């Protein structure tokens, strides 16, 4: 498959691009909800509109009412989300949770997917337990109890956890904390007794929770996939989320870069447009090169994942790490080249810097993923 979008994908990109620019733009969404201290950190109206376009169910199979598309298509939507800094539960719900649910039972799909497809439900995932992404270590425990389980432990950085109708929780059903096996994934509904959230607003105005499970009673049918066999589902979910976050990061980088290049063409100092100074031209051109490369490896990896290729796991880490490095460069150069105005809240460029920080941390930063690349390569 060539490494560019085919006709259908290009059409989807057009749709997503104009929709996000018109409806999902910074003024209408991010600033609007932020300035109102919205407790969700996003607008449900937009989520509903995204459902009307089919986006919410983009990875959901057609017989479940979705579009049955792949990670390339999900990435197209995410890149536009990134470019417009559109706050939305798309990544947690339509990518991460949807991928986990695709491993669920028929009943489970019937219970949750229609709400997602319709844009009525929001999902979150609870994997991390510390301030850094370390899914190799899961200490939250689910003990057998009757036909169900008792869930005990705590999770950090549950993005949109407070707004979620269901949270996918990775818990240990056997083995010790650092063991790969013995993990089970659960779909924990919002009203589960014993679950409590400590909500925090993050630097990018999105909302996350510290979520506690204090002997939460779960039915046996809350299990996604196999008891003790959840690592595989967890890995598939994380791969989906990581390449999704990479795609969104490419969007953030492009958004920041485009604004910066425009600014270089408008701002005059020393009697010239600052874009005429070679010192800035070279940095802009370097940034452009990095963004193109990050975008290429992201598309390549999406295709590998869709094809179920063996190299997809490692390439997912390559993409996540590369994008994190690149988007960081884009936002830093963006603020710097805007000069003093880049430090103001009124200008959007700073919002890109904030979003990048949160997004890069989500599901593993560049250090985590570069380390993973080294380990998988055998060094």
């Amino acid at each position, binding site marked *: 498959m060539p490494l560019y979008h085919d006709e259908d994908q290009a059409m989807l990109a057009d749709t997503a691009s104009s929709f996000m620019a018109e409806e999902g733009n910074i003024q209408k969404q991010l600033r609007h909800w932020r300035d109102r201290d919205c407790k969700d950190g996003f607008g449900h109206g937009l989520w509903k509109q995204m459902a009307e376009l089919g986006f919410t169910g983009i990875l959901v199979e057609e017989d479940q009412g979705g579009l049955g598309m792949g990670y390339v298509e999900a990435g197209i939507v995410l890149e536009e989300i990134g470019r417009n800094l559109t706050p939305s539960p798309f990544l947690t719900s339509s990518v991460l949770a949807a991928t986990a649910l695709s491993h669920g039972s028929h009943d489970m799909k019937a219970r949750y997917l229609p709400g997602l497809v319709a844009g009525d439900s929001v999902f979150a995932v609870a994997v991390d337990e510390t301030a850094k992404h370390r899914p190799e270590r899961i200490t939250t425990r689910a003990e057998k109890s009757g036909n169900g389980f008792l869930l005990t432990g705590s999770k950090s950085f549950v993005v949109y956890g407070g707004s979620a109708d269901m949270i996918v929780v990775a818990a240990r059903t056997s083995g010790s904390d650092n063991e790969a096996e013995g993990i089970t994934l659960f779909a924990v509904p919002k009203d589960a007794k014993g679950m409590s959230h400590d909500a925090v607003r993050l630097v990018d105005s999105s909302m996350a929770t510290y979520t506690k499970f204090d002997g939460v009673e779960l039915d046996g049918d809350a299990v996604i996939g196999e008891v003790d066999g959840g690592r595989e589902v967890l890995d598939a979910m994380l791969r989906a989320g990581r390449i999704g976050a990479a795609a969104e990061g490419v969007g953030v980088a492009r958004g920041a870069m485009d604004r910066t290049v425009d600014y270089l063409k408008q701002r005059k100092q020393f009697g010239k447009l600052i874009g005429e100074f070679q010192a800035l031209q070279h940095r802009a051109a370097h940034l452009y*090169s990095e963004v193109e490369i990050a975008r290429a490896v992201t598309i390549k990896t999406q295709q590998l994942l869709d094809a179920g290729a063996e190299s997809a796991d490692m390439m997912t880490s390559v993409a996540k790490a590369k994008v994190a490095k690149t988007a960081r460069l884009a936002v830093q150069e963006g603020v710097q080249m805007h000069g003093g105005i880049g430090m103001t809240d009124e200008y959007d460029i700073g919002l890109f810097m904030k979003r990048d920080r949160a997004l890069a941390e989500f599901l593993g930063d560049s250090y985590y993923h570069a380390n993973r690349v080294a380990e998988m390569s055998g060094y």
Partner: protein
Amino acid sequence: MSDLEQFRMETRKWLEANCPAEMREPVRDEEDVYWGGRNASFKNDAQKAWFEACVEKGYTVPAWPKEYGGAGLSAPEAKVLREEMARIDARPPLSSFGIWMLGPALLHFGTEGQKQRFLNEIAHGEIRWCQGYSEPGSGSDLVSLQTYGEDKGDHWVVNGQKVWTSYADQADWIFCLVRTDKANKYQGITFMLIDMATKGVSTKPIKLISGNSPFCETFLEDVAVPKSYGEDIPAQVGEVNRGWDVAKYLLGHEREMISGAGGGDRTAAIGAAMKRHAAKTGDDLDPVLRAELAMFDVDALAYSAMGEKFLDEAKAGRAHPAQPNMMKYAGTELNKRRHELMMAAGGSRSLEWESEDTGGGKPARSWLRTKANSIEGGTSEVMLNVVSKRILELPGG
């Protein structure tokens, strides 16, 4: 089976039968590369057999039309051939500036007569070319070149000096930029083909920091260049005074070639190999070096995806025409970083300049050679100028 799969099976079979085992090893040094030309000799029988089999099949220039010595392969077929050759580590049967640079320019701008003669000679390895662009006073600012050709009716008399002419002392012909109108900066340059055996052409080798001397100063003293080498074979490519277009077109191909966009090990991950290497000399990878290797591998694997994407887009005619400049910039900077890390991982062993264990100081010499990647074919700074002006459309002259 699709036609392409059919082609893959046939190619595999052909390679199996025709590519000798000795030719299925990575190129180690200059001797492993066959450049062709009037004075060429083969290193061994395997190199000769492999070259001859490829010439017969048109596989020295697989994508060129059959009438010019190619195999007339479509882009997808050529890709299959590349993949199949890479699969068995087959060496290129013939390396040449004629293939990488002049050929594409002739295909685009040449007359039928020029194509018939020169493309066939290139494809058959009968002629070795060098590139006469740079001059002592004209490097990055190539258009300021001074070598002058005076119109003498049926011939030109060319005077001037070229510099950094790679392999000039071994080349049969030179494709050369010559000023033919002093009043016109861009539209006063002619792209000329000159036989190096012509009276007045001489070369002098220049020694590099790697200790090798693959290039020369080239002197042109009252060189009489006939305006025609036969029917429909003018000495210039394109029109007289319009050689700048040809020169730029050719540079695009040169940059693509140098950036390694066509694949090759430049874009491969190196961490694992460096760990094995270090273990052999009884060392561990320092944790900080390991981290740098990991970050490098991320960049290298990502760049390799970019190379693939660029080729796909270029083939489909969707790439920005200035994109090769970006590829050249990013690829060459990456390659320099790669050799820095390899030197670091090799430790004192890689400092050896002449020892047998290092194949005559290969690591050090290669490391030094890579420093030219971001200079030859246009410097990184010039690439960034082009990207910022032509792709980002930043203002200023």
